[in-house]
Structure formats: structure tokens, C-alpha cells
């Protein structure tokens, strides 16, 4: 009512302000809904803790301390985040085309295996940078081909990509075990079958002043690059069209098959890189320890990030922190290690449910549009 009596100049200004406010209100949706989802899952998890007779306050205090409270905790968190960034990209890129790839773990395993294998004949003579470069390329190719096959199967044979990628994970593990326990086994390690070690001189070091290997930085750069690819190029635009409506994309003459295979190959290459860093920065060789579940946690990261490569980084750090604090929670509160899995599961469910609220809450709609 006050507005109607205002001078004309002021009305114009308030119109500008309200438009700004509307804009803010619409974009706030993407912050408020995930935040609410986090709070709801926190409340649900607190109820769970109370049911088993533990203090939620203690729990969250320990998660803070174990994941983010000290400089050691931060490094612990970041070390665990690095592989999650890569494996989340393996889910996020095909998701733009509407593909649900859940077998990134297989590409990780094969990427690590390929990197360690191609290194074997080179260890004795190649300088570290050459060795690591070749290993990284081999890892990306192995992972890229692996998930690329999934995309090709989907497009040319109509095979469900979710099931195919999951089942191919088991094949990847069998390939790893077959060679690591057979032809490529290093005889100097009689008890844990592994490939020949790279040697300390050939390993990727840590970011100076930290315990965190360079994979974290490469992962963040890769996220930025893939964000640009998917949001600022014709390739990304075409992929998004195909993801929105496959038939329409085909009718427009977009090369849908090519888009699918290439997106899947990029995704697989990302997961393959995760395997490369596991071998070149952590283990120094390929063995069953590569199968650590990063590929599966990556699915959670990508969904929480709504398949946005830039959001993947903070989400991976968030989940890395929860994982890092798991040990402290276990030791101090005498809770089983599965406790943090319950928290992760609740988060996943609540976030998935919260997806359905986008565009449905009138609060976030501008008045004109409503």
C-alpha cells in the first residue's frame, strides 16, 4: 500500500530491486533445497543415534574434529576426496546425456592396472616424467575404452548402461586378479600378489607442505575443464539436448551415438585417472587394494552435486571428511564403522527425494511467473 503512494522515481527503483530479489529468490532454490536436505538427513541420523543410545552432539563434534577440525584432519579429508572427484566425474558426464553409469569402479581398477602394467618394461630405464606420462595415458585409455564400450553397447545394441557398467565392474576385477595373480605377479612379494613396484623415485609426490598428492589439484582442474566443456561448448550443448530429449536430438541431426560414446569415454578416462593416481601416488603397484569402493562413493558424490562438475569438488571434500572422521567416531563412541555408511545412505536418500522439489515450491518462483 505504501508503494502506491511513492513517487514515480522510487517505484522504478523498487521494481529493479524486486527483480533482483526475484532473481536471487530463484537461484536461492539451488542453495536452500540442498541445505534443507542436509539438515533433514542430520535430524534423521540424530534420531537413529538416539535409538542406539548415543549422543548426536558428540557424533557431529567428532565428525567436525576428525574431518575438518585440525590441519591433520583436513589433509586426511583431502586425501580421501581426490579419488572421489575423478570417480564422480565418471558419473556426472554421462548423466548430462541421461545415462546412469555406476561402474566407474571397474574403469578405476582397469586404469590402475593398465598404468602399472605399461610401467613394468619401463621402470628400469625411463625417467620418472616419461614413465608417469605414459602411465597416465594408458590409464585414461583403459578406463575410456571400458566405459566407452558401455556407451556403445547402449547406443548400438540398446543394452541398459547401468546394468552393463555394473556387470563390467566384475569383469574388470577378474581381469586384474587373473594377471596380478598370474603372468604379471612380482615374485619378490610372495604373500600379496602385486605387479612390479614402481620404486619410490618414480612415485608422484605430495603438494608441498601437505600430505596430499597432486591428484587432488589435477582433479579440481579437470572439474573446471569439464564444466567448460559441458556448459560452454557446442559439444556440451549437444550432449545436453540429447539428454533432454533423445528423439528430438536425433531429429535435429545431432550425432547422438558419437556423443554417447565420447561422453562415456571421457567419463571412463576420469575414473581411469583415479586408478592411475592410486598406483602412482599411493600403492606404487597394482593389486587387489585398488578395489576400495571409490567408484561407488563417486556415484553418491555426483548425485549430491546434481552432476555439476564444479559442485563435485566441495561435495567430494564433504564426503571425504565424513569418511575421514569415521575412524575417530568408531574409536571414541564405540560405534561400528558402518555408522558413517548409514549417514551416507540417509544423505543420498534425502537428497534424491529433495530433487523432486525443484520448481515446485512457490516461494522460489518470481511473482510474475507464478
Amino acid at each position, binding site marked *: 500500500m505504501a508503494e502506491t503512494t511513492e513517487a514515480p522515481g522510487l517505484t522504478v527503483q523498487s521494481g529493479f530491486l524486486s527483480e533482483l530479489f526475484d532473481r536471487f529468490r530463484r537461484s536461492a532454490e539451488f542453495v536452500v533445497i540442498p541445505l534443507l536436505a542436509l539438515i533433514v538427513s542430520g535430524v534423521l541420523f540424530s534420531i537413529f543415534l538416539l535409538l542406539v543410545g548415543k549422543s548426536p552432539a558428540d557424533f557431529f563434534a567428532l565428525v567436525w574434529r576428525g574431518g575438518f577440525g585440525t590441519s591433520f584432519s583436513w589433509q*586426511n579429508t583431502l586425501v*580421501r576426496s581426490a579419488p572421489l572427484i575423478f570417480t564422480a566425474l565418471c558419473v556426472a558426464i554421462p548423466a548430462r546425456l541421461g545415462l546412469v553409469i555406476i561402474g566407474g569402479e571397474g574403469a578405476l581398477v582397469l586404469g590402475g592396472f593398465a598404468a602399472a602394467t605399461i610401467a613394468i618394461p619401463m621402470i628400469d630405464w625411463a625417467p620418472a616424467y616419461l614413465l608417469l606420462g605414459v602411465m597416465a595415458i594408458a590409464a585414461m585409455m583403459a578406463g575410456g575404452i571400458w566405459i566407452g564400450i558401455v556407451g556403445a553397447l547402449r547406443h548400438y545394441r540398446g543394452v541398459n548402461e547401468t546394468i552393463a557398467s555394473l556387470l563390467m565392474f566384475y569383469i574388470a576385477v577378474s581381469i586384474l586378479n587373473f594377471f596380478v595373480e598370474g603372468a604379471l605377479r612380482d615374485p619378490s612379494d610372495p*604373500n600379496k600378489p602385486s605387479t612390479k613396484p614402481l620404486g619410490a623415485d618414480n612415485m608422484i609426490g605430495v603438494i608441498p607442505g601437505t600430505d596430499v598428492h597432486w591428484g587432488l589439484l589435477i582433479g579440481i582442474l579437470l572439474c573446471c575443464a569439464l564444466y567448460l566443456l559441458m556448459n560452454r561448448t557446442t559439444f556440451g550443448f549437444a550432449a545436453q539436448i540429447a539428454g533432454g530429449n533423445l528423439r528430438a536430438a536425433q531429429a535435429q541431426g545431432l550425432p547422438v551415438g558419437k556423443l554417447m560414446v565420447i561422453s562415456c569415454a571421457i567419463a571412463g578416462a576420469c575414473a581411469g585417472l583415479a586408478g592411475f593416481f592410486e598406483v602412482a601416488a599411493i600403492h*606404487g603397484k597394482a593389486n587387489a587394494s585398488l578395489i576400495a569402493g571409490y567408484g561407488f562413493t563417486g556415484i553418491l558424490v555426483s548425485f549430491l552435486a546434481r552432476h555439476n562438475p564444479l559442485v563435485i569438488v566441495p561435495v567430494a571434500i564433504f564426503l571425504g571428511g565424513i569418511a*575421514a572422521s569415521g*575412524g*575417530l567416531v*568408531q574409536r571414541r563412541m564405540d560405534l561400528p564403522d558402518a555408522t558413517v555408511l548409514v549417514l551416507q545412505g540417509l544423505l543420498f536418500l534425502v537428497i534424491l527425494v529433495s530433487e523432486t522439489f525443484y520448481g515446485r515450491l512457490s516461494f522460489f518462483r518470481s511473482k510474475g511467473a507464478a
Partner: protein
Amino acid sequence: MSKFELSRRTLLQSSAAGLALLSSASLSRLAQAGNLTVGIVYVGPRDDFGWNQAHAVAAAALKDVPGVTVVEEENVPETIAAAKSMESMINLDGANLIFATSFGYYKPFVLDLAAKYPDVEFRHAAPLWTEGDPKNAGSYFGYLDQAHYVDAVAAGLSTTSNKLGFVAAKPIGTVLRNINSFLLGARKVNPDATVQVIFTGEWSMPVREAEAANALVDAGCDVLTCHVDGPKVVIETAESRGVKCCGHNASQAPLAPKGFITGAEYKWETIYKMFAADLAEGEPLPNFTGGGFDVDFVRNTPYGAGATEAAIAAADAARADVTAGKPIFVGPINKQDGTPLLAAGASFDNYEPSLDQTDYLIEGVTGSIT
């Protein structure tokens, strides 16, 4: 070879020192332990009826020692997570002694951390430490084949088909040695006894363990034992098929109330308490500690309903013999392929270094390594 001779020498020295200390260290001296915090990392659940439980039982015993705080973490995979769990125990819980109980923790994680934290003692449960490794790292282990030998003496008197079944994980040195010792124990009291072995290929693969156990019973075996991480499935299968069984790693007696004879168990608490006492005294910990009955590092599970009077008497006598140093490997013994291992009248000392490198099965064992 020289490496193993050295290992053996340090081993015997440290065992002797351990015994001397054990006999002299009374609880009152342990009470001065002050603030010793021990961190223990397990690769699986603490209640797996097997490898991890054997350590957890010892950890519980260590908690009763005044002045000692124990922090534990289970289900820690052999990845960077293992390193970070141990580091978290050091940084956030103030641990000054770490027990890394899974094989794959040693290289590279224990070695790296020992270099990084020179004031913290690291001990790893497998004979991997060698000269040149950090002085604040070390190995501890038990010669479980001695306890399997005693098991087999009881088993040899319990079988009517003269066929004993052995479900084994991987064909590596310690496993093959246990199988060979099991046959020798059975042959000691029953010259007609044979041991049939099936390898599952994995340390923990419950489905395959059940299949193997059933196949052995189908083949006529009427006593089963095993060397897998968690013998639960094998013991339960034996009980449900109505045959007798001998345990491994920890006590499985509650799982087979009818057919349990006895079992081969580690007694880690001897070593854990010994190390705690050493640190309380300000003594350096040995880098290499191992032994069998003579130093109380292994034991047999209390006899179950499956053990007859005769079996109990013979097994008790066999244990007394081994404790006194009477050899298990007494010739003539041939390898499976017929090549002689020991001539008639020759024997191996129970700590014969070459037995650590066992890569053969002996005549009387059916089943193939490859």
C-alpha cells in the same frame, strides 16, 4: 638365504628375551606403565571368528593392564585409509604404539609412517621387517603350524575314513606349511591318514569356502579344518554335515557344539602385554618377534565335544613334545612330486628358516597348489 638366517637369529634372541621379561614382569610393574596408548587397526570386523577376532581378544586383554589405553578401528581397507587411520590415532588419540594387523598395511603404509613419526612404535603382524627398515617398525607373528600339528594329532584319532579335509585360502608359504604340519600330526598317530586340500584363492570368500567344505565332506572327509581369515563358514558347514572339525585363528568352539575337537589359535595377548611392559620399562621393542608354544604365542582351543579321551591324551602329549622342542618335520618325508624333502632319520628344527618359504605340499596331501 642370509636374510633368513639373520631373521632366525634375531627371532630366537628376541623370543628368549621376551620369555625372560614375561617371567619377571609382574603386574605391579606393568601398573607403572603410565600413559601408554595403543592403537590397533583391523582389516575386517572384530567378531569374525577368525584373524581379526584373535587380535581383538588380545586387545581386550591388553585393556585390563593398568595405565594402558587401547583404541581400535575395524574394517580398515589396505589403502591410504589404513595410513590415515593410524595417523589419526597418533595425532588425535596420542597413540605411541600401533599394531597394524593386516598383511597389506606394511608396505608402503607402516614403513612410510614409521619414517614420518620416529617417536611412535609400529608393529606389524607378519614376518616382513628386514634390516634397513625403520628401527621403530617391526614384525610379530606366531608359528601356528605347531598348533595345527597338535590339532591334527587329535584329528588323526577322530577320523574313521582316514580322510581329513583342509579348506585353504591361498597357496602361499604359511598356508602350505600349516597343511603339511597338519598331515604330519595326523600321520604321527594314524599312518593311514591323508589330507585333502581345496584352495579358495581368497582370504575371505564365504561362498567358495562353503562349497569347498561340502565337496570335502562329499569326498569322504570326516574331519575338516581350514586356513582362511574367518573359519566360521567352514566350521558351521562341517557341523551341519555331521562331521568333526578343528578351528583356526580364534576360537570357533561355539559354532560347533557337537563336532568341535580343538583349534589352532594365536595368543597375541602374550606379545601385546610383552610390548606394553617393554615400553613401560623404557626398553626398546624387538624388531622381530615370533614363536610358537615354547614362548606362548600360540595355543589350542579348549577341547570340544568332538574330542575323545584318547585324542585329548595324544594331543596333550604332542603339545608337550613341541613345547619342549621336539621336531614336527621328521624324515622320511617326500614332496608331493616324489622328490625327497627329508631322508629317514633327518629332521627340521621347528623354526627351520627354509620352512618359512614352503612352496610345496608333501606326500599324503592330495590337492594341487596350482
